[in-house]
């Protein structure tokens, strides 16, 4: 049956949509494309999109998979490794998948267990083994990152269209500031507001500054950002380091720690860099020995496969 289906759909790339820990906003943003939704389903062969259909094929090879959400349990990690194995191209969508999301805002402080206990008490969960939120690319190779909280539908269309035709995707590398200038907004930094526009990835059409509100950094760090200069500027405006770091970490979490730890004065970020050996393998080894082979080194596996 599967073969027949693939014969009739031969020309269309097979696509899967998956969600991990987050608010489901990136997949919902796709469902919010009422006018284009049927076109999407016509242009590609959607094999899995739980939010839209109960018809799911989760054992097939995929041309492209889109993943939203960060990784926070052992089950998710297994599932991620499986999706990577089955996908030619893997795209992380949304700030949670790309940077760990707001739930990774304290990544690297090493107090996750304490905080977990604070929320859930001493109850032993039987459903899954949870751990601190990490972005997808800390576990498997990610081919493209589409940031946003949530993603912008036009960037998504652009990426889907290009990828479906076998082309590569290049998203904006400039910060929100550029879009803000194009929209001819008055600069909020000049008005002494703590705006993250200069260091946040563009693509949202400078939504907040266009509404007279400072950028909160929800698209994560911009490739071309001059973070050092932004921090200096904000300090000149009498914002404390603490305030600045708090804002930068809220949505840029893991990526901010990774890229700008020195500038941000963050020291205890060791666990963020290597969560895999300790935190993640343990539960799997302790669980099913059989599954170990398939999940132990998702990264290495997918690489070998590509060759």
């Amino acid at each position, binding site marked *: 049956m599967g073969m027949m289906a693939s014969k009739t759909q031969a020309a269309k790339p097979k696509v899967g949509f998956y969600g991990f820990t*987050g608010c489901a906003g990136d997949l919902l943003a796709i469902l919010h494309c009422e006018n284009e939704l049927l076109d999407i389903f016509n242009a590609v062969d959607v094999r899995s999109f739980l939010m*839209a259909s109960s018809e799911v094929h989760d054992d097939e090879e995929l041309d492209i998979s889109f993943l939203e959400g960060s990784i926070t*349990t052992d089950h998710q990690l297994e599932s991620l490794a499986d999706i990577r194995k089955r996908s030619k191209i893997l795209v992380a969508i949304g700030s949670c998948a790309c940077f760990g999301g707001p739930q990774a805002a304290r990544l690297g402080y090493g107090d996750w267990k304490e905080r977990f206990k604070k929320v859930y008490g001493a109850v032993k969960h039987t459903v899954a083994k949870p751990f601190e939120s990490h972005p997808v690319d800390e576990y498997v190779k990610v081919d493209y990152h589409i940031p946003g909280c949530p993603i912008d539908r036009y960037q998504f269309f652009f990426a889907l269209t290009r990828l479906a035709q076998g082309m590569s995707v290049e998203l904006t590398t400039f910060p929100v500031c550029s879009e803000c200038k194009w929209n001819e907004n008055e600069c909020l930094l000049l008005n002494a507001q703590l705006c993250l526009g200069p260091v946040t990835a563009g693509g949202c059409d400078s939504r907040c500054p266009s509404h007279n509100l400072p950028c909160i950094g929800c698209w994560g760090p911009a490739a071309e950002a001059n973070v050092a200069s932004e921090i200096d500027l904000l300090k000149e405006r009498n914002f404390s380091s603490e305030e600045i770091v708090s804002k930068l970490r*809220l949505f840029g979490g893991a990526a901010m720690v990774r890229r700008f730890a020195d500038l941000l004065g963050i020291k205890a970020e060791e666990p963020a860099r290597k969560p895999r050996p300790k935190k993640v393998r343990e539960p799997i080894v302790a669980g099913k020995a059989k599954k170990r082979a398939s999940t132990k080194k998702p990264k290495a596996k997918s690489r070998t496969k590509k060759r």
Partner: protein
Amino acid sequence: MSLNRIKIESLARVEGHGGITVDFKDGELSKVTVDIHEGPRLLETIAQGRVPSEVVSLTCRICAICTLSHRYAALRAMEKALEIEVPPKVRLMRDLMHCGEMIESHALHVFLLALPDYLGYPSAVHMAPEYLEDVQAGLRVKRFGVRLMELTAARSIHGENPVIGGFGRYPSKSELLRFKYEAESLIPDAERGVEILRNLRQPTYMEEGMTFMCTKPEHDRYGWVADRILVSNGQEFNAWDYHKLTNERVVPHSMAKRSRFQDKPYFVGALARFNLLGERLDGVAGEHFRRCYNLSWIRNPMYNNVAQAIETVWALEEAPRIIDKLLTHEEDPAIVAPSRDKGAGSAAVEAPRGTLYHHYEIAEGRVVHTDIITPTAQFLDMMESHIRVAAKNLTDEGDTDNIELKLEMVARAYDPCISCATHLVKVRGL
């Protein structure tokens, strides 16, 4: 062959991963659990030590579908804590954005997630060839809700325009008028959902009496924001006494906490609102309510779908009324600054799927304590109870064909946030 276990592996997603497990022992139903495996986010602890505005941006991201309800609840709680009184135009704008969310969320659930169940399709896309006009009507209503959120909140998901003390920017008169006329023109489309559901036979295999709870707006008006909470046993509480209503606890099979009222499960959502306040509905929605309402509504969660369909009509009638009032306020008020940097505040608003509570404590300008109780976390016990009754009745009668689907339909009727998902349920063999 007798059943040992019914396992619905993943009630897929929206607010995360959940499933249903029904266990039998010696042919008797022994245990029913709604398992929530959603990954933990610990956002309440992420909020600690942050300034109030950051926390509002953070907590609205708990959910993409109820994002504006979260934001509304957060803003009201923060403003109580910081002693901010917002001008009438701000309150009207918030009520308008809230209409947008109700319309979007209900249209999505009624037309795209619940109807395919009743009509026997895996999705609305599959339903489209046979029911094209209905699917298109549903999409038009949903699209309007999305656009109304974009207009008022700057974005349909995690819009940042509503802030503590007001709005960054207000829509123009002509924009408001255009939305008013469009809302009015969409009422017949929304009524289509009511008509279809009204003419379908509602299954009864899960029926069981329930306790209902919702916010009670002032002046005998129908609405979704209030400081009083009404319970179907006649009791009333202040929203800041939400602890007396919700009694949260943690269970091992769920990452979502559970609530009970006086040690019993309860129902929150459109059905609760209609059972408690339905008499207050006016206009076209009021007519539909009076035509559809019957005594099964107090026992059968499936009627939540009908209640949502009618509430969508009400929201499309309410939005133009709010716009008319908004147009009488010409000046765009500046954002109101807080009068102090410490305090505590709780607020309740009705999210599309039930009462949502936010509570914050602030000291020296920083949030030191956060407590958020979502509708889905409140009604999980009630949902589990209805699924138990359904599983028992169906297996007692030997009616086990498609039993997974029948159980999923009960879960779906609740429109749980883990469920917008629900369509999406993957069933593993018995």
